[in-house]
């Protein structure tokens, strides 16, 4: 921004000329005076006056240059709008004549033919002045009238030093008004000149200049809107200029100036959108002047770079709130920095190209003269040369590329020299002589100008001798003057006139009045001078190229890209990849600036992104740069890393390059480093697409496709190294897709020499010790020898009981210290049979496990256990050989959710989290006994998993596991109950017909424990007097029928039968229950009898394991159905269909509780420390449970028959049928009598009967037998009409014995 010319960067201020060196600081105390610029003139003669020129309006006149170099500066710094002269107020009285003369002189000087300067004469009134103000005012008015001062041109002002502030403000108003008037008049004059004289369409260049000037005047008086209007018109006119008529670069450069003028005005008016639009429009338009892609277009690239950078900086200076929301790419500041950076890159390439092209000439050139002019851009945008950047560049181009030499549309001089005369003249300003002249007249403050001129003097010293004085070249005809037809002498911006169509004759014209200046004559510019000018151009080219060579392109590129990066990062528009792209450019720029360390860091970060995105082409470029970074930094590991990745085929490195890189890599690997093995920090992918990694080959084999839970999965993992040196590895990590395999048993690795493809010695693989550890696991200094197969055998134990399919196995080998790491992924496609893990119910295992460390585990416990009692488990660990002392033996328990495990001594509960106990050492040939107690609140069996693990410093090294099934039960008996009416005990009937009034309840007991059970008493307590127990009996049916005391085959006992009916009864009634006693099998029967008689209560039945004991109860249930069961809801006699189902025909109830008392007496042979405990627990145990429910059924109508047992032929027999209605409703009965050949009888064959509720009806039939013998009765069937059921009797066939009649 700083290099942008001041006159373009800042808005112009009105210039006020102060004549004389009076001490006037007091006068300009008003704050608004800072809006003005001041110029000191010693005397009125120093006022720059316009040249006198002949203006010959012509339609064919065209400007040789669009805007003159010094025009802006001239009007900003040298041409005042208002002149101020100071006098003492006393002089009004004392020296009136002198003052009058002075004012007249000023008036005459300021009023020129074309320019009307304004003036203000200030009379300073001292504080001690005796004269009144009124007197002085009168004097002033008199002078005004006398001299005839027009208020539009000037004014006289009495400045009272008493009232400084007020006077100062008034003075400012007067000056400001006059200044505004001056600029307005100037603008009108320019506008009038052009509109009157020239054609807008034919001479757009003139209108460009005119509107530019009008814009400047408007801007100077603070009217920005008008200024914008004029600049816009100027720009439009500029675009209409034929593109080959002028130097394209000049048009572009003027466009640049106009555009940025408009942009700065729009930004001042806070119209950011408009400013962006103007810039956008300008860039689009300017492309018409540029041939992109041509490396010779250096000057265009510089302008493009500069315009984007400048605009970005201008936008950046705006308060952030104005640009907070970025919705459009064009609103992003980063975009402009990015574009500037891109152009800067192209500029760099272009300058390189040109330097190479002119290498020979360039090397012969005297470059020392350029040394002081390090930055050409500074030179271009120097205050003196600001606008004429284009001119210099154009000259460079002119010499560089003659094809693009503009052809004059108006047929001016076709030679380059002629066309470029304006530029030449500007360049000529740089020569020492012209400078000397200029410096005499121009304000001495122009130090920059001096410097530039001095430097340029050196450049042009040799070449411009002939032309340095030929500044002023005037044509006979059209005047190439300022648009107002004159130029200012003191500005010394001489016009170079030319454009003689017919001849190259250039007239020498003495410019202006040669008063105080030593003007040089203007040399003729003819064809003979052409070579000189070309030489001069060439020199400029070299100067230009030299400055380009000195320019730090990389620094500029980095700076711009970094700015773009920051802007994009802060802005809201999506730019993730854009940022990566910019980062890449920054990294490359750093690389080109030889900052390899930082470049490497950036490349490493960026490459991740492209690798992830699979943009191999981009990655390839980054890797190539990274490779070179590694090379430059002597970072072999980084180099190797990049080289290996570059060799991946999909990266797309050409084959030749790949071979070169591979050679380098192998060479590097082969070179011995500090250690004698290769330790590159390489992370390379072991994939199929990576053939270079045949360096290390990796395979995995699985022994089984299907694996059971808790069964080791055996896998073999082999590594072959083809590297020239051994590789150190310290870590292998094998991961499955699910973390089910968290433990691994690994055999020590074996190195097998390979011949061709590795051959494995199976016997060797089986050997060596196991290490139990978790994955990942580490090998201290495991070294892979070159060309040797290293095989690892693993056994994996799944810790999860899930069904899984192993989809992939990943192997990561690495060296933690050096960072070497390679990853190898095995997918199911490459595995012949994918691994399926299945979970099966745990299989009972032996209680003794043989461990490799010669430790045996023995587990003992009584089975089954009683609920709510401590159930002991004894774990014995025997060491047969070694004394193991360096670690801890841990015993883990799992799957004991049903019960609780207690420690032996402390009886502390071992929770699920703290489910381990440990002890430290095992002495040789010694046994460690560990007792644990399990207490279960519920019955059932469950599995206890016991892990015995040896833990040492290196980790879990050994493991043993046993599964132990524990059963807990309430009693040691199994009960089963059935009911029967028959003697067949195997028949289980649960339905009892209430008509029959009694049934048997059978209770069976089977012992399930090895410990004999003594049962003291079995009782049946009926509920609510549901019935009555008629008789009870028991029978023990062991395999060999050892119940010798019970000789009754039927084992029935009758009610109140206190004595053994069959001689061997030993049942004693005790309330509703019975007490049984069966002697022990070892006891004598006789003794048993006597004991039974003496003390029945003390004896009991003993049941051993597998024996069965049965007890029978004969029960008469008479109160099964209560009175409510027969109740009708509506007490109607007549049947109601809705009430059909009210009569309850069946009921299922449990008839009572069975109470069994038993005792366990026999001792248990166990170890002493818990046998005592076990013995103490011998106590009478009582078991109570309900009988299984019995279904009782009753019928609505029953039928019974009464008939005699014998008869005589011919004599009637009376047979009675009784029909009983049990329900509370009417019942209809159908009667059907079948014919019989043996009997005679009368009556209806079919009849219908009605039975009243709870009524009994008797039907009498008289049969007369016809024959003798055993004859069946005629069939008489009764059907219940409601259900069409046949009423049955207990007997199916009725017969009668008929004897012959007596004769």
């Amino acid at each position, binding site marked *: 921004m700083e290099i942008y010319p001041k006159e373009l960067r800042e808005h112009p201020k009105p210039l006020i000329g102060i004549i004389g060196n009076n001490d006037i600081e007091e006068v300009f105390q008003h704050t608004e005076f800072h809006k003005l610029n001041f110029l000191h003139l010693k005397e009125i003669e120093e006022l720059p006056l316009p040249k006198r020129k002949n203006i010959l309006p012509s339609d064919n006149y065209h400007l040789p240059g669009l805007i003159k170099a010094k025009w802006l500066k001239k009007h900003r710094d040298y041409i005042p709008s208002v002149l101020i002269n100071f006098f003492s107020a006393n002089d009004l009285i004392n020296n009136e004549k002198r003052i009058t003369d002075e004012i007249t002189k000023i008036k005459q000087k300021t009023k020129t033919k074309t320019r009307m300067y304004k003036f203000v004469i200030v009379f300073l009134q001292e504080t001690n002045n005796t004269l009144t103000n009124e007197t002085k005012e009168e004097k002033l008015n008199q002078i005004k009238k006398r001299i005839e001062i027009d208020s539009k041109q000037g004014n006289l002002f009495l400045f009272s030093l008493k009232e400084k502030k007020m006077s100062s403000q008034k003075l400012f108003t007067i000056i400001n008004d006059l200044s505004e008037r001056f600029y307005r008049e100037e603008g009108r004059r320019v506008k009038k000149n052009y509109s009157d004289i020239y054609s807008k369409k034919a001479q757009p260049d003139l209108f460009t200049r005119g509107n530019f000037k009008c814009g400047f005047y408007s801007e100077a008086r603070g009217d920005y809107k008008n200024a914008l209007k004029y600049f816009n018109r100027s720009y439009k006119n500029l675009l209409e200029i034929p593109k080959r008529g002028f130097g394209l670069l000049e048009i572009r450069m003027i466009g640049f100036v106009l555009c940025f003028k408009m942009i700065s005005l729009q930004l001042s008016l806070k119209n950011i959108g408009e400013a962006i639009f103007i810039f956008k429009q300008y860039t689009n338009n300017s*492309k018409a002047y540029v041939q992109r892609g041509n490396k010779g277009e250096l000057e265009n690239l510089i302008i493009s770079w500069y315009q984007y950078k400048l605009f970005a900086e201008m936008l950046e200076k705006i308060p952030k709130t104005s640009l907070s929301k970025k919705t459009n*790419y*064009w609103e992003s500041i980063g975009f402009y920095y990015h574009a500037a950076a891109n152009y800067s890159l192209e500029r760099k390439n272009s300058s390189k190209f040109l330097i190479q092209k002119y290498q020979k000439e360039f090397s012969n050139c005297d470059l020392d003269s350029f040394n002081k002019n390090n930055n050409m851009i500074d030179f271009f945008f120097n205050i003196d040369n600001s606008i004429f950047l284009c001119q210099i560049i154009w000259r460079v181009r002119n010499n560089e590329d003659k094809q693009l030499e503009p052809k004059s549309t108006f047929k001016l001089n076709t030679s380059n020299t002629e066309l470029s005369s304006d530029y030449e003249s500007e360049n000529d300003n740089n020569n020492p002589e012209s400078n000397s002249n200029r410096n005499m007249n121009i304000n001495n403050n122009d130090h920059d100008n001096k410097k530039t001129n001095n430097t340029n003097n050196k450049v042009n010293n040799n070449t411009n001798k002939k032309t340095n004085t030929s500044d002023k070249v005037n044509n006979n005809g059209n005047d190439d003057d300022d648009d107002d037809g004159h130029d200012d002498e003191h500005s010394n911006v001489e016009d170079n006139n030319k454009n003689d169509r017919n001849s190259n004759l250039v007239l020498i014209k003495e410019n202006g009045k040669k008063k105080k200046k030593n003007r040089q004559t203007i040399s003729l510019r003819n064809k003979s001078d052409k070579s000189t000018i070309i030489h001069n151009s060439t020199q400029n080219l070299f100067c230009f190229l030299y400055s380009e060579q000195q320019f730090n392109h990389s620094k500029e590129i980095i700076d711009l890209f970094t700015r773009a990066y920051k802007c994009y990062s802060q802005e809201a528009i999506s730019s993730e990849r854009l940022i990566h792209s910019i980062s890449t450019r920054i990294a490359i720029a750093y690389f080109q600036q030889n900052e390899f360390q930082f470049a490497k860091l950036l490349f490493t970060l960026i490459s991740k992104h492209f690798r992830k995105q699979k943009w191999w082409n981009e990655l390839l470029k980054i890797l190539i740069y990274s490779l070179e970074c590694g090379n430059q930094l002597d970072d072999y590991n980084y180099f190797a890393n990049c080289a290996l990745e570059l060799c991946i085929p999909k990266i797309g490195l050409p084959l030749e390059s790949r071979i070169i890189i591979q050679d380098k890599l192998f060479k590097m690997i082969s070179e011995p480093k500090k250690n004698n093995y290769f330790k590159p920090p390489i992370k390379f992918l072991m994939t199929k697409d990576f053939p270079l990694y045949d360096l290390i080959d990796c395979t995995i084999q699985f022994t089984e496709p299907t694996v059971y839970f808790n069964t080791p999965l055996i896998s073999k993992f082999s590594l072959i190294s083809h590297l020239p040196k051994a590789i150190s590895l310290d870590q292998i990590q094998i991961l499955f897709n699910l973390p089910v395999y968290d433990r691994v048993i690994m055999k020590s690795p074996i190195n097998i020499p390979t011949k061709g493809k590795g051959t494995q010695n199976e016997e060797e693989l089986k050997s060596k010790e196991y290490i139990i550890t978790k994955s990942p696991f580490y090998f201290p200094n495991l070294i892979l020898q070159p060309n040797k197969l290293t095989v690892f055998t693993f056994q994996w134990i799944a810790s999860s009981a899930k069904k899984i399919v192993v989809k992939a196995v990943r192997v990561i080998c690495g060296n933690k210290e050096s960072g070497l790491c390679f990853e190898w992924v095995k997918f199911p496609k490459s595995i012949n049979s994918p691994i399926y893990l299945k979970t099966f119910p745990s299989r009972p295992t032996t209680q003794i496990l043989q461990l490799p460390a010669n430790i045996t585990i023995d587990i003992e416990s009584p089975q089954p256990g009683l609920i709510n009692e401590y159930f002991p488990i004894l774990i014995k660990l025997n060491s047969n050989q070694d004394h193991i002392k360096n670690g801890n033996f841990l015993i883990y328990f799992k799957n004991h959710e049903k019960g609780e495990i207690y420690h032996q001594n402390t009886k502390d509960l071992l929770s699920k989290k703290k489910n381990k106990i440990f002890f430290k050492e095992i002495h040789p040939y010694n046994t460690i006994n560990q007792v644990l107690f399990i207490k279960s609140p519920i019955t059932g069996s469950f599995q206890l998993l016991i892990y015995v693990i040896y833990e040492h410093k290196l980790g879990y090294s050994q493991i043993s596991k046993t599964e132990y099934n524990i059963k807990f039960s309430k009693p040691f008996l199994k009960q089963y109950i059935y009911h029967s009416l028959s003697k067949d005990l195997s028949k289980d009937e649960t339905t009892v017909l209430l008509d029959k009034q009694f049934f048997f309840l059978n209770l069976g007991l089977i012992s399930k424990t090895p410990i004999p059970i003594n049962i003291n008493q079995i009782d049946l307590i009926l509920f609510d007097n549901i019935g009555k127990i008629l008789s009870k009996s028991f029978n023990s049916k062991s395999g060999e029928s050892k119940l010798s005391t019970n000789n009754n085959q039927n084992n029935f006992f009758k009610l109140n039968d206190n004595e053994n009916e069959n001689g061997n009864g030993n049942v004693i009634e005790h309330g509703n229950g019975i007490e049984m006693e069966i002697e022990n099998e070892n006891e004598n029967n006789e003794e048993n009898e006597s004991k039974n008689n003496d003390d029945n209560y003390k004896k009991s039945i003993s049941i051993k394991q597998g024996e069965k004991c049965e007890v029978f109860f004969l029960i008469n249930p008479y109160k099964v159905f209560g009175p409510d069961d027969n109740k009708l809801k509506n007490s109607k006699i007549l049947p109601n269909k809705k009430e059909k189902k009210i009569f309850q025909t069946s009921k299922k109830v449990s008839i009572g509780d069975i109470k069994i008392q038993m005792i366990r007496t026999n001792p248990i042979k166990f170890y002493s420390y818990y046998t005592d405990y076990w013995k103490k627990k011998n106590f009478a145990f009582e078991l109570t449970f309900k009988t299984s429910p019995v279904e009782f059924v009753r019928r609505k109508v029953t039928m019974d028959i009464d008939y005699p047992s014998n008869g005589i032929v011919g004599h009637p027999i009376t047979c009675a049928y009784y029909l009983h209605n049990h329900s509370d409703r009417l019942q209809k009965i159908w009667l059907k009598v079948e014919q019989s050949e043996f009997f005679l009888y009368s009556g209806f064959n079919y009849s219908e009967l009605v039975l009243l509720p709870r009524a009994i009806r008797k039907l009498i039939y008289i049969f007369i037998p016809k024959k003798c013998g055993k004859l069946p009765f005629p069939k008489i069937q009764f059907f219940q009409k409601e259900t069409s059921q046949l009423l049955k009797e207990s007997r199916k066939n009725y017969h009668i014995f008929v004897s012959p009649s007596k004769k």
Partner: protein
Amino acid sequence: MKIVSIAILGKKNNPLYVYVSNEENKRKFEYIIHTSLDFFEEKVPLISPLSKKSTQNQNDMYLGHLFPTEDYKVYGYLTNTNYKLVCIIDDSEIKEQEMKTLLNNLHTILVDTICNPFYITDEPITSKTFHLKILDLIGKK
């Protein structure tokens, strides 16, 4: 309108085919193509069927002008199968309909190529026929 580059990007944003008129500027265009993915992602939520804010026609796969660079204009086209077609033209005025038609035709060519049983999905397109069709499309054959 001068087409300077045409690119086809795969479902996973990986380049399948990149045509560049000037090989010297290939790298520059690749940066632009890569950057265009940002704008695809920015515009895709607008036309996603799941998006409630969908304002465009959901069947319209033409995304229009994605972003400008200092010299070029970048146009995008997103197929229903998430293939991304990028067309870079010089910074001249162009009718939207022309570009739309061009990208539709490009899509048709792409579909024909993908339907080829010898083409492996998501692998770079190396078919010569495809290349010739592209040249034909942009009028360089």
